[in-house]
């Protein structure tokens, strides 16, 4: 039994992209853009400037994710509430982040101090300093 036929039978109310059949070349174009963006994101850190690294790494990740979501997943022609649904879920992740970061990201606060985490940071930094003194120091981490 073919559900596909049933789908097509009421295509008008089952999403619109059946009317938007892009030619393969369209997708290849998107892919080319993605590849260029990808190259930039790999090249960015080689400049060694922190702000450039952050921008190229995460800014371009967002741009790439947008392209994939919009054109490969067809969210651009999907019903709007689907986009809102996924954005709302992302919002929950942000909410979680902002609720938790004051306790987990920070290592001290009002009347408390995360001694173990501070020690871990110190240990790690000291170990690195010792290691860097040994071998030829690699480029200072940003």
């Amino acid at each position: 039994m073919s559900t596909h036929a049933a789908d097509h039978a009421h295509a008008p109310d089952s999403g619109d992209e059946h009317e938007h059949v892009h030619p393969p070349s369209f997708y290849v174009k998107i892919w080319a853009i993605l590849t260029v963006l990808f190259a930039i994101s790999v090249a960015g850190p080689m400049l060694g400037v922190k702000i450039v690294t952050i921008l190229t790494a995460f800014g371009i990740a967002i741009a790439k994710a947008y392209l994939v979501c919009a054109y490969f997943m067809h969210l651009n022609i999907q019903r709007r509430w689907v986009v809102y649904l996924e954005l709302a879920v992302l919002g929950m992740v942000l909410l979680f982040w902002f609720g938790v970061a004051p306790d987990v990201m920070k290592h001290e606060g009002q009347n408390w101090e995360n001694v173990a985490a501070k020690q871990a940071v110190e240990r790690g930094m000291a170990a690195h300093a010792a290691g860097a003194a040994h071998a030829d120091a690699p480029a200072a981490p940003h």
Partner: protein
Amino acid sequence: MISYAVEQVSTYAKDIDFLILLICGLVGFWFFVAEGVLFFLIFKYRAKEGGKAAYMDGTDPKHTRFISWPHRFILICDVVIVVFAVKVWMGVKQTMPAPDQTVRVVAQQWSWSFQHPGPDNKLDTADDIKTLDELHVVVGQTVQFELVSPDVIHSFSVPVFRLKQDVIPGRAIKGWFKTTQTGSYDIQCAEICGIGHGAMVARIVIEQPERYAEWVAANVATATVPPAPAAPAPAPAAPAPK
């Protein structure tokens, strides 16, 4: 209400009891009103032979006002509760009065050990007095405590102080209390910490200054070995038992 069975021994105990009483009054009122209306309606509108129910969908303002007005009052009650709750909370947890004495509380599976400052009233010096399951403080003094744990999460709970604070391994958490009367009371662990959780109890002994001085004098002679370096270790609370 609570003080009937559990004495108020810290300065903020009465604040917390008042807050509880306030909430009790406010929510108690709504609870009895709602239950009363519920049972009244069940009784009044019980099925009668040949009766017919009213047809209303709950959009007519004549009906909805019975809900929206109580609702506004509830909002006001909420605001009152928030204001008082935050006030009490800030007094207990967010302020830190200058301490007369500082103690360190180490919660471990499954006992409490306490580090008293000793005669010089400073922690981490040679004359510190370490005790097991017994904390001595002077009545009327403000005591600052530092909670540390080498293994799992415990909770430092002193019901007569209305005080509770979890002890998180890896963290040093500070708090305070100021006692108001002498006596000897339970310190309980209020966070499950393994098989001995049900027996993890200590006593807090609140004494007059003279008695406390005697106790210090009697114990400082037998005090444990002095801590190795004079300089404060980077973290006396170092958790990691290797």
